[in-house]
């Protein structure tokens, strides 16, 4: 394309304009532009790439043909969860996050990007109501990173370097926490101790917590619900124990539960973190992940948070509000290697999606949604548990996911899932891959997308699959 036709995305590739601009800057050969790059560092050939699909129509056809090789599950037919969940995305959310103004904005300032700032402030404000805190961070990459950054933040706040995390955290979250918390031979590492869980309920093993908890512990992290779907009814007692040694309690949540379940601040959380994807973002093969942190409005917390925090302030016009970044100088944009960890572009649009989602749902919608999900998941657990040789592990308290033991059927989870797939059903996540003690178990996820009939169809297909 050095000479010839203009590319539709590149206005100045039109030959006449290109020549005019070259004349304007006084070059005869386009190569002169690259005089700064020594010949020895130059690529001396054309890149080997496929011939371009310059026609939009042909490009579309190519992309559609590729994607048509994918087989997403029909609605109500997939029971996969494990950190990424299929929920209904309201059309208004898609409409708003698809708006070119939001979709193509970036790091513009308070005035030209007022709407972006306000939408993010409204996300922070509504999340604050759900979790019961006065500060909510701008989104980060995902729940796993939010948890890991919360642990490091707690270590800085308390001046301690050891944290306790339950063994129920999922494989990805566990790996991220280990990577972000660091390695002992390097600087600033936070040592992670692993807490056992009760084999029958899936909740924190309290004697183990008492054994490991001392005044060297910066924070204890628990989840509500856990990766295995279980709820933690001992949360308030755990908070008392943790506060007894002046450590912080970090609670990881799926915020979708919080119309029905208690705000973590009410049972003693000092930092709340979790996943935003359920609040109006499509799964996109895991690309929908987005995380958040929340904590009290106290300088010792705010000053140690690594993430961007949008704040509100009055303008010169009475009654009018504007927005800006709070305590920007603490971030890595300003302090580089002396900052609190790092911050960068992550998942801003998911924050806007969450704002729209929560505004649509309101308190009643969030409660009703929580109720219907918990009812459907318990209905599903009842139906599956009624099948001979199939048992539901852990309980009685779970939200939308629960562990099903299939070991007694004499068939592997993989074989069973292959049978289910023949009926168009995507079965539960094979936990044996990640938890040695849960070999032969699968994690089933049920949401508002699954009707009673969908669940009955699963039960019937499972019964057939193990026969």
């Amino acid at each position, binding site marked *: 394309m050095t000479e010839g036709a203009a590319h539709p995305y590149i206005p100045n590739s039109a030959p006449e304009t290109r020549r005019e601009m070259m004349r304007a800057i006084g070059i005869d050969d386009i190569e002169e532009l690259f005089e700064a790059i020594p010949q020895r560092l130059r690529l001396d050939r054309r890149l080997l790439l496929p011939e371009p699909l310059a026609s939009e129509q042909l490009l579309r056809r190519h992309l559609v043909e590729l994607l048509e090789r994918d087989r997403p599950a029909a609605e109500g037919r997939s029971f996969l969860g494990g950190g*990424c969940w299929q929920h209904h995305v309201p059309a208004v959310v898609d409409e708003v996050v698809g708006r070119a103004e939001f979709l193509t904005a970036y790091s513009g300032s308070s005035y030209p990007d007022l*709407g972006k700032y306000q939408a993010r402030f409204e996300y922070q*404000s509504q999340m604050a109501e759900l979790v019961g805190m006065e500060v909510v961070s701008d989104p980060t990459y995902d729940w796993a990173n939010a948890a890991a950054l919360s642990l490091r933040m707690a270590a800085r706040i308390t001046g301690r370097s050891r944290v306790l995390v339950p063994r129920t955290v999922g494989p990805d979250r566990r790996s991220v926490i280990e990577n972000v918390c660091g390695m002992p031979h390097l600087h600033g590492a936070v040592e992670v101790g692993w807490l056992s869980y009760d084999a029958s309920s899936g909740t924190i093993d309290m004697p183990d917590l008492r054994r490991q908890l001392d005044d060297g512990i910066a924070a204890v992290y628990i989840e509500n619900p856990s990766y295995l779907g279980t709820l933690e009814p001992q949360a308030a007692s755990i908070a008392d124990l943790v506060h007894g040694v002046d450590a912080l309690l970090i609670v990881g949540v799926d915020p979708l539960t919080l119309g029905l379940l208690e705000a973590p601040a009410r049972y003693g959380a000092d930092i709340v973190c979790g996943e935003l994807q359920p609040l109006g973002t499509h799964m996109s093969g895991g690309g929908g992940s987005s995380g958040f942190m929340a904590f009290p409005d106290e300088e010792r917390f705010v000053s140690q948070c690594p993430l961007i925090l949008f704040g509100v302030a009055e303008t010169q016009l009475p009654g009018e509000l504007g927005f800006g970044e709070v305590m920007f100088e603490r971030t890595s944009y300003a302090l580089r290697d002396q900052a609190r960890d790092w911050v960068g572009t992550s998942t*801003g649009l998911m924050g806007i999606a969450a704002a729209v989602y929560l505004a649509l749902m309101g308190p009643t919608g969030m409660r009703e949604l929580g109720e219907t999900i918990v009812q459907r998941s318990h209905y599903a657990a009842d139906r599956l548990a009624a099948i001979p040789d199939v048992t539901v592990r852990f309980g009685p308290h779970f939200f939308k996911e629960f562990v099903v033991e299939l070991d007694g059927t004499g068939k592997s989870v993989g074989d069973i899932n292959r049978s289910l797939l023949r009926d168009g059903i995507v079965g539960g996540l094979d936990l044996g891959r990640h938890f040695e003690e849960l070999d032969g178990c699968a994690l089933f996820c049920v949401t508002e997308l699954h009707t009673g009939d969908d669940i009955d169809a699963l039960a019937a297909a499972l019964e057939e699959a193990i026969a």
Partner: protein
Amino acid sequence: MRETPRLSGYHAAVWQEPIILEMGAVGERGIIPSTDRRVAASVGPANELVPPALLRRDPPVLPELAQPQVLRHYLRLSQQTLGMDLGVDIGEGTCTMKYSPKIHEQVARMPQLAELHPEQADEALQGILQITYGLRQFLCEISGMDEFSFQPGGGAQAVFAASCILRAFHLERGESQRDEIITSSFSHPCDAAAPATAGFRVITLPPDEHGLPDIGALRSVVSERTAGLMITNPEDTGIFNPNIDEFTRIVHDAGGLCFQDQANANGILGIARCRDAGFDACHFNLHKTFSSPHGSEGPADGALGVTELLAPYLPTPIVRKDGDSYSFDRDRPRSVGKVRSFAGNLQCVFRAYAWIMSMGADGLRSTAEISVLNNNYLQQRLLEIPGVSMPFAHRPRRLDQVRYSLAQLKEETGVGTEDVRDRMVDFGIQGYWMSHHPWIVPEPFTPEPCETYSKEDCDEWAAVIAQIVREAHEDADHVRQAPHRSTIARIADHDSFEDPGRWAMTWRAFKRKRLGTADRSSSTS
């Protein structure tokens, strides 16, 4: 230079939308979740399925608002956001504000991408796996690297993942004493912050008189403690470091590894490859160079590439091809594991793949050529304006961007770079990016006129700067009081964002601190 009518006529949308928590009325609904009476009857009330200690006592104070009003509110907020699609967004340098083709958005909404679950079997993901593998091949060719991971959810996270790889590599070789990373002042701040989080001490090379990282300083700091070099090239100044291969040799000789931050690779696509300069690893921001939309700061993707030597350490999974079928390889015992959940932002991977498919080798080369041509053209226009200067040598030519200085304007008129930025928006132009820290260039601004922008766009942008400079001399206060035609009046007191007694990051905090009204509250505090 063409006169633009927007120099006088623009005004941003002014809606003065209330905070959403102030809107609506009790009982209004925006959407109704589905219910299943048969299921509900079978298991009984939800309240009895939840441990009493965890049952919510007070409902969350969320808006109660009907659907049209929610939509209207957020559409109005969108109108008050100057996305790249609406403006000549040359100003946000280091961000590569290029056009994100609409056809990508249309196709990306297909359930075959949007409704995929990451734990579905590879057989159900053959389309997106083939696309991911295709992008892997393209980026290997563009960079010279041997393998790519798409797991990092942004550029800074890719730098963190690279730090994890360096950490694992040296540890495995019994060189745990290697605890220092070397970067440069004009490299992105994350090239210092991410390795520091990973536990490294960071050494920052200052620029020499040409604006290049000081090679003498590099020689004096490498040692048996050097874990690696993490550096941008060209740096934020747009200056290409011609001795970069000498840098990588010095670091390799000391036993370290070399990572190039290629967040903004627009100026070198098809021109130079970091592998050929001796780098062991690099990353590309798919949301910058490769057209995935910036999304109001994400979703993003930092595609991380490495040589064969480091491939075993890449985050898991990576994509494989076997005959006509594709899979995620999750069985990689030497991998650093995960820096983020799942396989990466596949919707960004899809868009980058689509963009390269629409460009081809010649299109990528044209992207580089026109980006650099635009930058040199804009440079000529801007340096005609009195008070605008370009620190460091004028030759050889800069590549994709330039960090200019308004120090002279500030001295002569008292109008500084922040004032100019805020005045720009009165002309319908996004405020420019000033500089990453540290501010070595005084009163800086950093435009990046990538291939998306026409000659007229460049002229308009330069005309706006020229206009503001004129105003600075004629009526400095008018500039300092800007914006005048934007979405809101000036924020009265920026210090409140630094004051624990007054800052407010949520509406409930604002009400408590500034309005003196506390809510029916569901918090302990």
